[in-house]
């Protein structure tokens, strides 16, 4: 007979020390991360946030924040939001379609490996290099434009849109779509083929499957990824600055403008106030993204 019983020898393993709570050292593992986040994220953010309350003489002021209501800053905020939203939605839709095409293929197929590798690189491809790539290819002196023009197709008939908001949106899509692929692909991978088959065997068709099963399952992931793309575009600076240096439509460019004004209006406190505005918006978006990701990971 086998019987369970009390251990012959009592031990103190896992018990609190006499008279006090057990002192856990589990948190030590996150110290490097906390140090990194504190040093390179929280500290600079705090310096910026506090600096926005200081004027040129070092005295406390609310003026810098009041300047955020200047018409060109408001316009810039709206423009940045619109460009970010449009490129996020367009990037999300195109990226989701590309991800779906990948998922439909072989899990170890060439298409998947190629697109995922390329997306990893292209999602990080931005700044002056990206802007130059577009100028050199489809710009007014670019080889694609010259070729198209030579064959009777002039896509700049109504103005050189590459250096306007339309062009900026197009260039942004270049890194937004790959980012969407990277973020959305795991969610699509989580969709089990049995769910479609179960839908069919229960009397549903393709529409029912997307309407009642795959759609609701993927929507939080899609929305979360779109928010991430929005934050990605909203905080971009170098690409916009390299492509459009007249008019400065993006909010991030306004920070640069306030720090290096050619007309002598050097306003570091105001620049910090704009930065705080951006931090708040991006933080809100990121929190929403995290909440949606949490829901997605529970299902997929």
């Amino acid at each position, binding site marked *: 007979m086998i019987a369970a019983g009390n251990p012959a020898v009592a031990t103190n393993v896992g018990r609190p020390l006499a008279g006090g709570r057990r002192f856990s050292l589990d948190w030590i593992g996150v110290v490097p991360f906390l140090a990194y986040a504190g040093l390179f994220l929280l500290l600079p953010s705090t310096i910026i946030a506090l600096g926005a309350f200081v004027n040129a003489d070092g005295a406390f002021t609310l003026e810098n924040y009041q300047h955020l209501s200047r018409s060109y800053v408001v316009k810039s905020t709206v423009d940045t939001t619109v460009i970010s939203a449009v490129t996020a939605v367009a990037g999300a839709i195109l990226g989701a379609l590309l991800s779906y095409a990948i998922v439909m293929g072989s899990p170890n197929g060439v298409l998947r490996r190629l697109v995922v590798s390329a997306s990893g690189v292209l999602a990080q491809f931005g700044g002056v290099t990206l802007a130059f790539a577009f100028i050199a290819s489809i710009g007014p002196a670019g080889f694609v434009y010259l070729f198209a023009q030579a064959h009777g197709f002039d896509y700049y008939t109504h103005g050189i849109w590459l250096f306007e908001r339309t062009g900026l949106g197009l260039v942004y899509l270049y890194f937004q779509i790959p980012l969407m692929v990277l973020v959305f692909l795991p969610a699509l991978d989580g969709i089990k083929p*049995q769910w479609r088959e179960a839908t*069919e*065997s*229960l*009397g549903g068709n393709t529409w029912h499957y997307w309407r009642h099963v795959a759609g609701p*399952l993927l929507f939080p992931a899609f929305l979360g990824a779109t928010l991430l793309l929005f934050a990605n575009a909203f905080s971009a600076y170098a690409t916009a600055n390299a492509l459009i240096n007249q008019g400065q439509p993006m909010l991030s460019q306004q920070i640069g403008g306030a720090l290096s004004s050619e007309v002598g209006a050097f306003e570091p406190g105001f620049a910090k106030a704009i930065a705080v505005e951006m931090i708040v918006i991006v933080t809100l978006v990121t929190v929403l993204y995290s909440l949606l990701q949490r829901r997605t990971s*529970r299902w997929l």
Partner: protein
Amino acid sequence: MTDRSGVEVRLENLVRRYGTVTALDGLSLTLAPGELVALLGPSGCGKTTALRLLAGLEEADGGRIVIAGNDVTGLPANRRNIGMVFQAYSLFPHMVAWENVAFGLQMRHVSAVERKKRALDMLDLVGLARFANRYASQMSGGQQQRVALARALAIQPQVLLLDEPLSALDAKVRSRLRDEIRRVQLEVGITTLFVTHDQEEALAIADRVGVMQSGKLEQLGPPTLVYSRPATPFVADFVGLTNRMQGTVRGGSVEVRGTSIPLVQPDVSDGPAIALIRPEAVSIDGNGGTDEGPLVGTVIAVAFLGAVSRVTVDLGDTTVLAQLPTSSASQHPAGTRVRLALRTDPVLIQREEPAPTAS
């Protein structure tokens, strides 16, 4: 309750190819109304393909599928009125249990009030009424499969298909759920096809077992017949344990280590062969002592299985398994010399090189 109100299902000469591989090679099978047939076989034998063709999830390259007298070969899955339970992870994770069960009713435009009532009734049938508001992630694997069973039955299908529904569960839950499935199947009286690679599962649950190999049915019959009278060497090998003992065919019987045993197969030519002998057909005839003989050997292991025990005996050139009542086996611990006896029930033979050990 064993009221069998199901329908007849006929698979007629079904063929399915994947490129150059033939997964189903002219499979024909008829399920009587209310019958539970288990398709048993190793991976790649075509059993799941047969089930998927019946479900309408794949198209046959040849043959017909007839349910209740209607040819459904060309019908899509969503118009066949077939309930299916998958291997695992088939519950919709964003719906609670009753919503999962009600999904098929929603597809059939049953009113919201009615479908919730019926979903709760079905959950009650599988003993999970109190889990109605739980998500799949909040239930155990066994509970999820019971919800999947309730979901498949809620649409009142003509046929129930079970695609290895127990394979992802641990042994204890598996055995309990197996009995639960059988109870519900008998209660509902639905014609059921159960696919598994687990012989114990198939033999325990089915009215008839079909053993498949290479896209063909090797044998179809009641579990006791498949086990005790395997039609082919493959079935003998695949279902249950078998001793492969070298012998010589002579005049319609095979002589194995001095014992003459009649053959199942008729018209077998004389010559060397391997006799396939079940462990239950081997008994211990007494202590071997210092005797010599073809069936005298040393016990090298005794496996306790409850009421019976399996004794492994080393005969020098081969090992043989004998299944005995535990009371008898306990008299022959490892290391003792024993004399074996072979029961003279008809056996199958195989014409190939002898294997050195019992399989």
